């Protein structure tokens, strides 16, 4: 894990504004999957269109970063930029089009799911390397307890309980985030 990856979005934005190119690289890295997921899963764009939108979103983000009012609201800002560009792609125009309510509803059908997936991904990134590794192997790579045991040199009989403990930490992290966001709305 590099130092930049531990920065909050607000800290990252401040560094980008100060001209830190590494921070910009981290911002793109942090949000590239998110943008791509909105394009492909939210709006069902073709790979080619998604690539075009991807390029354009980050170009616009770079050019307009000064206009972001709340540095901690980077994710919704990027989501909005992406949605607008996806709608442009669907309508076939290169220029920004007025947003049509119907197409917005279609495009945002999967947004909650995408946002949830990214919230989980961010929460996973706060866990220890050992937890990240074991969760990834079991849930993403579909590895059996035996394979995990062999490859990580951990007793096979402890794998299920280790995974359960890591999931508890993940749940605590996610609940902490939800509590914080609900508190901030009050």
């Amino acid at each position, binding site marked *: 894990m590099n130092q930049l990856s531990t920065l909050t979005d607000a800290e990252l934005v401040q560094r980008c504004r100060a001209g830190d190119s590494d921070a910009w690289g981290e911002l793109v890295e942090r949000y590239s999957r998110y943008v791509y997921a909105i394009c492909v899963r939210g709006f069902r764009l073709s790979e080619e269109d998604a690539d075009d939108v991807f390029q354009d979103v980050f170009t616009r983000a770079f050019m307009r970063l000064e206009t972001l009012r709340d540095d901690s609201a980077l994710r919704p800002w990027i989501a909005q930029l992406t949605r607008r560009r996806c709608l442009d792609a669907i309508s076939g125009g290169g220029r920004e089009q007025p947003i049509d309510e119907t197409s917005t509803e279609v495009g945002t059908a999967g947004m909650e799911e995408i946002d949830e997936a990214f919230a989980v991904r961010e929460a996973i990134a706060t866990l220890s390397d050992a937890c990240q590794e074991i969760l990834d192997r*079991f*849930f993403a790579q579909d590895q*059996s*307890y*035996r394979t995990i045991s062999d490859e990580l040199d951990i007793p096979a009989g402890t794998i*299920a309980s280790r*995974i*359960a403990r890591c999931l508890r930490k993940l749940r605590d992290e996610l609940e902490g985030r939800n509590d914080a966001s609900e508190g901030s709305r009050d």
Partner: protein
Amino acid sequence: MVARCSGDSWEDASGVAAQAIAIRERAAQLARADAEAWEKALTALRGAVTGEGDTARRSFDLEQKLERAAAVPLEIGELGADAAALAALAGELGDAAYRADAAAAAALAAGGARAVAHLVEVNLGVRKGDERLARARASEQAATDAAERVLESIR
């Protein structure tokens, strides 16, 4: 089910339930993959018997299909061992009122792993010393041990 019902008394219950769901989904996928692989292997076997087309190619194709047909059951066997281990954990740490259910789940999973080992040996014609058979037997043994542990606790 045991983990879901043990939420009040076991702080890792939901983590165990999540793993059980993942195992169940994986089992459904593997069952479909197994049926597909077996169907392809049967078709290749029929092709080998009827003797149409290039012999070397037919033989290679058959070998590939049989390899695949053997690989999926091995994964199912390992999944059976995982299910039994998880059931044993739930039986040990979950609500005691549901221990018998955990034991039943572990016994069923162990039965599945045993069936896989048997089928690998018989259907695929592997010999003693074959790495695939050793893997299937290891899964069977792990699942049986886990099931025995939890069954013992309710006797």
